[in-house]
């Protein structure tokens, strides 16, 4: 019998040593100074160390979690050529239906295609002849695009320099990016989300643009459309009355666009949210009065931005835009001083061809530097690009054939610069200007080097936590956890005396073991995880309460201490097993269905219960056995 106890003590000792060893790394890591950690990072030994410590979740150390999804309808649209109305309608319907019914887009699209008489071969080149073959081809193209997008994002993140980035695929068309402990969240977001689709697009002839503007003015002005003007602007019918106050008066956005947010916003300073509209001109030319001439380009005062955007997206107005062209906005605003001395920020509106003259995929090198002396961008940050020979050839042809025209450099549908072509550029060198600072130029160079995302990707979920909030959460979590833990320990000690202290030992061991398991599994400790840990303390206490209550009962029945302990454990263990197993099931289901924080909770709960079987039953039993064998216990301290 005594030997059996020795074996049990050895087993407990061994698990303790193992737990201690796996926790050593975490404890050591947190005792290091920042300098030491930096030193280890440069030395290269940090990574190995970090792989052994308990990871803190984004909610505890700050960081960002982004879920991106491939925009399948958009991908199909980009791949298609010769887009007939029938095709576009079909595509839009499929997209809407897939979203509404939470179905796979391709399944819906396939169904739509087979129900119609459309011949996909008219819209897709080199992807087969039968509709089914083309669909298969598109689907595999999409799957491929996800993998390439992951690769591109990984490249960008690596160049950005983040420790332990996690880039994973989820489902068929999703990518989850997690950057823990990252400080500059805004920069990282830009870097990841940029499609980085670089295009060189020729501007339309200004005369054509002028024709459109006149047509739009006339359309909005003519009597029968005055209702539509109001509709386009979402304004009350008698909006002209509201305008009759002063020239170039700033009118409240709410007034003109009819957005009535409870009226309280009016106190929010009319001037700041107003549109810049000249009343008389507005009546005569409702559209162009919102625009300004900025160096012979179409400038749109920042405050008119939404109004112009809204007009341009009106379906009737869209019909007036020449079919082979579109409007793009400048990436940045330009600051100008007006005649009356006020400064105003302007977006530039560019009217460009639909088809790009050259794609950015030919770019082989990209680097940030300051513009050379004597050039227009002297001393300003710019991004230099070099193209491969094929790109250089196309670029030479493009620039040579269009001297005197403007060529827009477009990144993700935003125009960075649109220089006039003066000479043919034979060597495939080009640059982008207009960056706010060197850092921005560097980031753009990174995305250009890493390559464009192979397909449109949209962010469907984002969660970021600033570092200070994370630190606060840790402090509160740990403090409250410690208080709760202490209260339970004290209560058990008082209520069950020495046996209670034994239960306390089991509780402490339980927490140690759970943390050790987390570090071995490289699981992540989140705030809900801490909550789960504390909850397991409650559950582990239950096991000992069950046992102790049962032992008390048996003693009352007149059994000897030894016999009471034996029966107590024997009976209670069955109950504990049944009761905890069901909680274990809940934890497993939570791990399966849960995401992020919930998963963290489930993981600690799961291991907490598992380890409590060992600590609350095995460990306490061992001590009871040992004590009753060593001394003749007449009265149990329980």
């Amino acid at each position, binding site marked *: 019998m005594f030997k059996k106890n020795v074996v049990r003590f050895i087993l407990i000792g061994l698990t303790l040593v193992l737990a201690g060893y796996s926790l050593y790394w975490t404890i050591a890591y947190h005792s290091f100074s920042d300098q030491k950690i930096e030193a280890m990072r440069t030395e290269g030994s940090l990574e190995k160390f970090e792989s052994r410590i308990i990871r803190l979740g984004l909610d505890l150390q700050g960081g960002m979690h982004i879920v991106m999804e491939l925009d399948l309808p958009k991908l199909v649209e980009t791949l298609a050529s010769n887009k007939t109305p029938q095709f576009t309608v079909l595509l839009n319907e499929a997209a809407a239906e897939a979203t509404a019914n939470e179905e796979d887009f391709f399944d819906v699209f396939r169904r739509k295609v087979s129900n119609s008489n459309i011949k996909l071969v008219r819209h897709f080149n080199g992807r087969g002849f039968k509709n089914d073959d083309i669909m298969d081809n598109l689907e595999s193209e999409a799957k491929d695009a996800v993998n390439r997008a992951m690769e591109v994002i990984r490249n960008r993140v690596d160049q950005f320099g983040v420790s332990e980035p996690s880039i994973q695929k989820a489902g068929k068309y999703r990518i989850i990016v997690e950057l823990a402990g990252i400080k500059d969240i805004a920069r990282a977001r830009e870097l990841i989300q940029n499609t980085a689709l670089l295009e060189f697009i020729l501007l339309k002839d200004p005369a054509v643009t002028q024709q459109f503007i006149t047509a739009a003015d006339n359309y909005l002005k003519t009597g029968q459309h005055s209702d539509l003007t109001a509709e386009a602007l979402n304004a009350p019918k008698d909006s002209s009355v509201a305008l009759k106050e002063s020239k170039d008066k700033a009118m409240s956005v*709410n007034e003109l666009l009819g957005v009535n947010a409870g009226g309280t916003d009016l106190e929010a300073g009319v001037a*700041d949210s107003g549109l810049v509209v000249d009343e008389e001109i507005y009546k005569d030319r409702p559209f162009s009065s919102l625009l300004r001439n900025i160096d012979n380009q179409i400038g749109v005062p920042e405050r008119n931005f939404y109004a112009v955007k809204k007009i341009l997206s009106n379906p009737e107005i869209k019909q007036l835009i020449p079919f082979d062209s579109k409007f793009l906005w400048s990436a940045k605003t330009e600051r100008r001083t007006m005649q009356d001395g006020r400064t105003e920020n302007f977006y530039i509106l560019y009217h460009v061809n639909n088809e790009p003259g050259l794609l950015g995929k030919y770019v082989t090198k990209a680097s940030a530097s300051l513009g050379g002396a004597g050039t227009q961008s002297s001393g300003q940050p710019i991004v230099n690009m070099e193209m491969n020979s094929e790109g250089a050839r196309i670029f030479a042809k493009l620039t040579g054939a269009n001297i005197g025209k403007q060529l827009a450099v477009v990144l993700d549908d935003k125009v960075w610069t649109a220089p006039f072509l003066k000479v043919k550029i034979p060597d495939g060198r080009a640059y982008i200007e207009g960056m706010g600072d060197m850092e921005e130029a560097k980031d753009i160079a990174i995305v250009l080097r890493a390559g464009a995302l192979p397909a449109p990707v949209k*962010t469907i979920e984002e969660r970021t936590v600033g570092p200070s*909030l994370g630190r606060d959460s840790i402090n509160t979590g740990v403090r409250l956890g410690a208080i709760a833990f202490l209260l339970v320990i004290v209560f058990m000690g008082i209520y*069950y005396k020495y046996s209670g202290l034994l239960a306390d030992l089991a509780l402490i061991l339980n927490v140690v073991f759970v943390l050790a398991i987390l570090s071995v599994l490289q699981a992540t400790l989140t705030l*809900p995880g801490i909550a789960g840990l504390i909850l397991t303390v409650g559950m582990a206490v239950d096991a000992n309460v069950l046992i102790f209550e049962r032992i008390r009962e048996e003693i009352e029945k007149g059994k000897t201490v030894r016999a009471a302990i034996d029966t107590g454990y024997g009976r209670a263990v069955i109950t504990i097993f049944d009761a905890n197993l*069901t909680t274990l099931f809940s934890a497993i*289901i939570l791990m399966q*269905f849960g995401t992020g924080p919930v998963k963290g909770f489930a993981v600690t709960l799961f291991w907490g219960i598992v380890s409590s079987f060992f600590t609350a039953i095995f460990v306490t039993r061992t001590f009871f056995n040992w004590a009753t064998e060593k001394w003749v216990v007449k009265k149990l301290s329980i």
Partner: protein
Amino acid sequence: MRLIKKTNIEFVKHYKVFLTISGIYLAISLISIFFVRGLNYGLDFTGGTLLQVKFENPITTAEVRQALAANRLENSNIQKAGESNEFIIRTPLQTSTDSTVVVMTKALESIPNNSFVTNKAESVGPKIGKELRSSAYMSIFWAMVVILIYISFRFQFRFALGAVVALVHDVLFTLGVFSFFQLEISLSTIAAFLTIVGYSLNDTIVIFDRVRENMKTKHLGTVEKLFDISINETLSRTIITGGTTLIVVLVLAFAHGEVKIFSIAMIIGILVGTYSSLYIASPIVIMFQKKLDVRKK
């Protein structure tokens, strides 16, 4: 020390009264959930954007609202957070394709002479919201199914039925409270609901286990008597465990944000879980047993 001496309370005697009271309460909860107040789904399930920002200099809610309105975000909900100059801004789903986090950040940056740090940003698209909601319901559903199977296997089907009815009662009860007070339902709340399910079941099983044991060892005439004795024998444990777990979640309720709501759900759940083990789960098994007895005769 001993809080609970040997007791002999007749728990089961008035079970019809308790079942009726619970039934009425649940009916009110259901009406509130489906017809009157509904449930206050958080960002996780509705989609939308939340930004928690802290400004350097003092600023009023009106000023923040103005900056947002100027960027067409006038339907934002602005809430002052614990500390001064700290705000939680919630914006419903936007139709624009631009990242709402970016648009909001730009809007706040336009506030002159004041800088801010973003402590938290959450943005959930409509699709994800829908998915999270269905996966939350699925997890609760599957938890119930698995429990039903396990208890049928370990005990008997009528015990499983009693346990699951008690669980449905607990979840509906807590949901009812969330509906009355319009507390926010987030992912953490769902985790709390599942923990409540686990906890309440713990309680129920401890009693059932004792019933099963007493069934074999003692011969106590009626089913009511069997349950009464078993509940009384385990009462001490029920109260001690409930008490210690309650201490833990009461302390946690002092936290902020998600953990706080989680703790509130748990406090409700522990109380109602203990109640349902005594007054819902047990009576249902008894009723079932009686029907069986009648049929046998």
